[in-house]
């Protein structure tokens, strides 16, 4: 099948999904105040400024149009169908996007590939600064969701939920977590008071979560009662981050954060004393030879470790579009899946987000790394015709890594 036919094939599968499953799709709260938007398969254009009065109308559109992606506005408007300037902004939910793209992961993203725009050289992992062959600095990159990436994103999500509930005092029914359907998680906060916050106020919340502007002295570092492990909020996080770092840091790691030689030596040779100091008021005043600047650097490192890696632009944007839960992701064929806060730890997105559970499809794979979906592991494949369960096949088709060979079974 050609590229175009493959696209039409994917759309047919999406249409089937919406025909059979759309009754499960719940509209967002206050749906009549939201803007809806749809990415259309064929033209790859965004249908925007749509409004719906009830869930049935929305579901009918999904069945009839079978879009590749479905979004709604985090904002509420008086007139959601008007142009931006005319909409009449009433407020917006607070949303967070955690995506593997923003997190350094232990897999080093070896499953991602890049192609040099100039000479066509290719490589694995995130694109380099300059092409090793021709020095070019522009690349096309292909990304994959792997278990390691998704696990890292999940860890950040758990950290975020912890900050939101403990520090910000939000209740578990105000904080909604969902797997995005691709490489990360969305956390969506709906709270009466937060809704009306402007961008400046939201920026303060973002800075708190990512650890920007933290002033160690204002949080008691070097003061009489330095931050300790059981302190709440950032005081506790500074202590925990410092504890973790100093407990294991090597000479090189300590030198890397810019500590003086003498300070490095003190911290390594007196590790036992540092450890002991946490029983009392922490190491801040115990050690001679680290100094203000030294502690500042250690704390900076601790903050980096403890900060939550969110996309800062998304959270400060008060007009953002966000994917609707239980709709399909056009890049994977997986569905955006809500996860109860208590289940996040156990949740496996590569099982829980599978939308197509029946049938098989025969496809020709151009190239794909080894990947896991459901109970099975697939690949790596290169120029190979294979018959795969619908979800795995659609995943490769949506990724643009394969085309349809022939449809065998279609339930």
């Amino acid at each position, binding site marked *: 099948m050609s590229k175009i036919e493959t696209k039409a094939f994917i759309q047919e599968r999406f249409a089937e999904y919406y025909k059979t499953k759309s009754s499960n799709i719940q509209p967002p709260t206050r749906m009549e105040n939201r803007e809806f938007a749809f990415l259309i398969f064929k033209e790859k254009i965004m249908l925007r400024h749509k409004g719906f009065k009830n869930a049935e109308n929305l579901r009918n559109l999904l069945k009839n149009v079978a879009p590749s992606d479905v979004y709604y506005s985090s904002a509420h408007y008086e007139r959601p169908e008007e142009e931006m300037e005319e909409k009449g902004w009433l407020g917006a939910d607070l949303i967070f996007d955690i995506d593997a793209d923003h997190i350094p992961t232990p897999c080093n993203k070896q499953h991602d590939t890049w192609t040099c725009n100039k000479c066509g050289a290719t490589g694995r992992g995130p694109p380099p600064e300059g092409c090793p062959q021709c020095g070019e600095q522009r690349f096309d990159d292909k990304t994959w969701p792997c278990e390691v990436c998704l696990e890292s994103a999940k860890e950040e999500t758990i950290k975020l939920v912890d900050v939101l509930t403990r520090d910000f005092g939000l209740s578990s029914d105000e904080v909604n977590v969902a797997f995005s359907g691709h490489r990360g998680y969305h956390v969506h906060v709906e709270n009466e008071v937060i809704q009306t916050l402007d961008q400046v106020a939201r920026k303060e919340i973002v*800075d708190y979560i990512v650890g920007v502007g933290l002033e160690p002295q204002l949080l008691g570092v070097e003061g009489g009662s330095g931050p300790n492990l059981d302190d709440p909020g950032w005081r506790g996080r500074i202590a925990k981050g410092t504890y973790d770092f100093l407990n294991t840091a090597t000479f090189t790691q300590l030198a890397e954060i810019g500590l003086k030689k003498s300070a490095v030596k003190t911290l390594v040779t007196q590790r036992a004393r540092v450890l002991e100091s946490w029983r009392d008021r922490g190491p801040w005043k115990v050690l001679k030879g680290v100094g203000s600047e030294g502690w500042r650097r250690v704390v900076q490192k601790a903050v980096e470790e403890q900060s939550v890696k969110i996309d800062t632009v998304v959270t400060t944007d008060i007009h953002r579009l966000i994917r609707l839960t239980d709709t399909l992701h056009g890049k994977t064929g997986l569905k955006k899946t809500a996860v109860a806060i208590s289940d996040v730890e156990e949740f496996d997105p590569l099982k829980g987000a599978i939308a197509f559970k029946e049938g098989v499809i025969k496809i020709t794979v151009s190239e794909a790394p080894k990947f896991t979906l459901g109970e099975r592991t697939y690949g790596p494949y290169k120029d190979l015709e294979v018959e795969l369960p619908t979800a795995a096949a659609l995943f490769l088709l949506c990724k643009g890594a394969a085309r349809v060979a022939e449809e065998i079974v279609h339930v």
Partner: protein
Amino acid sequence: MLVAATADPRVKRTYALAEAKRVSNQLKEENKEVIEKIADNFNWKLKTIENRSSAPSLDFTLRFTDFVKNAATIQDKKWKLINRILLKGEVYLTKAEVSRLLEEEVRRYIEGKLETKVGELPPNLMTRVERLKQLFFQKRGRTGWEEAPKEIVIMAYPPCIKSLYDTLSSGRHLSHIGRFTLTTFLVNIGMTVESVIDLFRALSDFNERMTRYQVEHIAGGRGSRTKYIPPRCDTLRTHGVCPGMDEICKTIRHPLGYYRRKIRVVRAEAPATSRV
């Protein structure tokens, strides 16, 4: 009413600030009950700390939303949420700090009130309004924000702009906020729309029509007619655009402020041509 009638934003801002300061000074003398009542008027969720054994120097807790609404515009680092104790949605504060935050609330309240349009007033009142304006400008000087000098001085770019500029000229990818920051900066220091568009030509995904539309929009030439300015320094820090501060950065809050200041330094260092 007289102040509202001047219809001058600077007169209004100054008046609102002065009134707010007056209120805040009075509040410092008041007891906690009075402060609680006033906070309640503005729908703040403010609570007195009953058990002060754990936090002896702190008097109140305030819902974080009320805190950020009012503290976000105060510059000192101690007003950043991250440098406060935040627990279960409550920020811990002293009485003096609550008064300072109320000052912000009062200032915005008065500014809001002054937004009302005052119609034609009797002539004797109008003379008074004019007199008020004159007095204000005599004291303040009319200039306000200096116009940026016309020629472009690349040496005076702040570190963030320098880095964005270098990235773009070498054809590397810039984030959306990076592009916005660079474009607004260049347009505001007087670069022409054409020259800005030319800079973007180095990008592989350059699309003249789209770029022109966006740059013209930012320059205030299309649709909304608003001319945009670059984000402030702390916003650039939030989004990871700030590459780290130099000495001048420590004295300013805005990339355009840096440019104005640095230009003076650059000029002062340039050899005077008139001397023989």
